[in-house]
Structures are given as C-alpha cells and as structure tokens.
C-alpha cells in the first residue's frame, strides 16, 4: 500500500496548526511530551481494552450519552474494535482520546499523536466516523487518516527540527535508529518520516514488509501485495511513481539473506524513471524479528559501460 499524497494547501494548513501547538509549548526540545500537548489543547485521555468487557461497557455508555456516537446494538463497539483493529478513538464532542491499553506502550505515542491530529485539523471535526447520519467513503477515510498521520508526524518530529538533524548526514537505517531515539518514536515511524520529509531533493523509498527471504515468509504472505507500506518521497513519486510495489519488493528479495534478525543485506539497484532513464539507488534492509524495514535512496544517474 503506497502512502497517500496530500495536497499542498492541506499540508500548509496542517503545518500551521502544528506550528501553533509547538509555539504554544514554547518550541520544546525532543522528545516532545504529549502530556503537555494534551494540556494545551484541553484534551482528555482515557483507555479501553479489547480484552476487558467492563471497560468496553463503560465506553459504550459514554458513547450513548455523547449523542453523536449513539450506538444502538449492544455489542457493536466491541465488534468494531475487534474487527477493525481499532487502536484508538477520538471523541470530538468530549475532546477525549481513548487508546487501546493492550497495545505496547511505544505504540501509544503514535496513536495518541494521530488522534491529536484529528483534533487540530479543522475540517475533521465535521467529518467524524461514528455519525449515524452519514458514512465516509473509503477514499475519504483514507485521506483523513493520512492527514492525521501527517499531523502526528509533524508533531512528534517537531517539524523542521527533524529535517535539520536528518539532512546533516547521508540517509541510512543507522541514521533512522539514531533519530528514533532522539525523538522518542518508533523506528518505523522515523523511517516513514525520513522518506516523506527529510530529503526533499533526493528520491527515496521505504518498504515495511514481512521477511523478504522465500524461506522465512509467513503462511499468509501475499505475492500480489507483499508490502505493508510503501512510502515514497515526493521526488520518488514524481520520477519513479510508476514502479509497482511488487517490483521494488522483488529487488530487495534479490539481495536479502535468510538471517533471523539484523541486517539482511544491501545492494545498489538500478531503477527506471518515467522517461526510461536509469538511476542507481542504494538499498538496505533490516529485520527486527517482527518486520523488515527497507530504505532505498537515489545515488546517481546510471551510465552503461559497453
């Protein structure tokens, strides 16, 4: 699944909202403390559990009171939480964020920032799911999620602060791990951020997949959709956006070993741009025993030697 491209005016508006929050906090140092963000925005945080019936019942009664999120069927919230892999909720009329307490702690941070994103994006207030009178189309929902993710990224990575630190050294998975520690965010969200934001003048791509080696693939591996995420930098999308995720995945299969963890391999790979021109990319893949993270970045035009 490729990342959704947001329009320039949408990005500018979200940037403005995040900048306002950061200004309100006196432009803090990383890692940003989401407690102070909540205080500033007068947001409340609570938890639910996908395994605790009592908590689910409590939330259900609150939702009934809230009016806009009326739930008539007694089991509907639980069903929704379970079948949609729900990680968090934002109840705009209560200014309340609810997180799934069964998630690992490090995941709470992204989910909370994502819900803060819904709170600060002005047009999301009138478009919330859970409205009994309308249903968002999947495409609209996807854009809204991408917008909230973008806002979360801007907030957690302190907008330009991340870019300034990221461009001071060449891109690499080592750099991603280092920045992940500095900003207190997951390696995956840091990788995503690096590709989307850090190097505007260099085509970059990242893949989040299962283990690429044929011997290590899980039984549910889908050859037609091998990537959980395929994140393209703006310039990569412009020049190389025609390349299918499956093609890029095939390229990393070519150099990846069957190690159980750590670096799976690295290689220089030639990719064709939209005009047929060839370019050399540096690729490297790391397996954290849960998923494989791949970073590919442009090195130079490819010159054939005959």
């Amino acid at each position, binding site marked *: *699944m490729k990342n959704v491209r*947001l329009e320039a*005016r*949408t990005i500018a*508006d979200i940037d403005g909202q995040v900048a306002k929050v950061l200004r309100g906090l006196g432009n803090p140092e990383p890692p940003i403390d989401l407690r102070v963000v909540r205080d500033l925005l007068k947001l409340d945080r609570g938890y639910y559990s996908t395994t605790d019936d009592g908590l689910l019942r409590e939330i259900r009664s609150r939702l009934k009171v809230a009016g*806009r*999120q009326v*739930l008539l*069927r007694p089991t*509907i*919230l639980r*069903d*929704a939480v*379970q*079948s*949609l*892999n*729900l*990680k*968090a*909720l*934002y109840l705009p009329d209560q200014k309340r964020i*609810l997180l799934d307490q069964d998630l690992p702690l490090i*995941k709470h941070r*992204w*989910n909370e920032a*994502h*819900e803060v994103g*819904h709170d600060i994006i002005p*047009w*999301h207030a*009138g*478009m*919330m*799911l*859970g*409205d*009994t*009178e*309308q*249903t*968002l*189309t999947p*495409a*609209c*929902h996807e*854009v*809204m*999620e991408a*917008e*909230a*993710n973008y806002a979360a990224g801007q907030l957690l990575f302190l907008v330009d602060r991340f870019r300034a630190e990221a461009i001071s050294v060449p891109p690499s998975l080592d750099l991603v791990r280092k920045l992940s520690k500095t900003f207190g965010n*997951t390696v*995956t*969200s840091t990788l*995503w951020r690096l590709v989307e934001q850090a190097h505007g003048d260099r085509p970059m791509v990242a893949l*989040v997949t299962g283990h690429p080696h044929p011997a290590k693939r899980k039984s549910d591996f889908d050859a037609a959709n091998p990537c*959980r*995420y395929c994140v393209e930098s703006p310039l990569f999308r412009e020049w190389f956006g025609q390349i299918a995720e499956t093609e890029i995945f095939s390229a990393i299969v070519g150099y990846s070993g069957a190690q159980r963890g750590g670096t799976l391999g690295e290689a220089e790979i030639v990719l064709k741009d939209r005009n047929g021109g060839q370019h050399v990319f540096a690729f490297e893949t790391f397996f954290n025993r849960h*998923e494989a993270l791949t970073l590919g970045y442009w090195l130079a035009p490819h010159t054939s030697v005959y």
Partner: protein
Amino acid sequence: MKLERSKQWWMARARREGDAAVGAGLLAFDPALEERPSSAQAAPVEETRIAFGRFVNLMRRRRGYTMERLAEVADLDASELLVIEDDVHYVPAPRTIFKLAQTFEVSQQRLMQLAGLAAANDANFRTEAVRFAARSESVQKLTSEETLALEAFVAILSEWDRNKVK
C-alpha cells in the same frame, strides 16, 4: 425540517447493517503495525457529484465571483474549482469541502455527501440532490427557478446542521 423515520426505515437499516462493524469513531493506525481494514462502504454516487458541481457553479455566480475570486476567498486553487464544476468524476480533498462549506455557509457534511466523500444514510437527501441537479442546467445568469432551487437546497443543507445541534 425534522427527520422522522418509520419503523420500516429502521428495520431496513438494521437488515442492511447485518454483522458489519460500524460507528466506532476514527481509526488510528501506527505505521509500525497492522494493516488497514478493507472497508465495504458505499461507493460514491455520480448523480450527487453532478449536483455538487452545479451547486458550486451556481453559488459562485450568485455571489458574482469569478473562479479566481472564489479561489482567493476560499483559499483554494482555481484549477481545482474548474475541475469541480466541469468533471463529475473528480473527488475533491476533505479540506476543499470544508473551505467551500465555510465560504457558502452550508453544512460541511451535506457538501461531503454531494461531493462523494460520504454517503448519506438518508434517501430523501439524495432525492433532493438529484432534483436540484436536474433543475440547474448551466446558464449564464440564474433563472428565478434556479434561484428557488438553489435556495431550497441551501435551506436543506442548513436545516440539517440545526437538527444535529438539537
């Protein structure tokens, strides 16, 4: 306008809902984990998009705006407004709908439905949208019938918001 719904309507809704999971607030996805769900929601309806393009066109003309002027007032791209008015297949960004709803002082939710970003759980609204589109053939100046159609439509859009507040 108060929306009254019959028992049959609610029963039909319940049957359509079946075992599907609906109405649980916005989802959050950490890029680090889990795949997005495949949603089986309603597809955009082209006929309401025709009404959406007509609506923007008529509202713009009623206010005496050129596309450039509306773009300036609403903080949108003129090129996008051109596509909105001319291409029924175009699906605008959520922000665009928000800005147009603010500018024309109508319900954001209703405009989203017209633009194909959301499906109304209300058949009457779609009927109104279609009627509006049919009555608003593109002409240089608004006829009195067009004006009436536009005003009735705006009234429905606004009424809907008031009902939601009650």
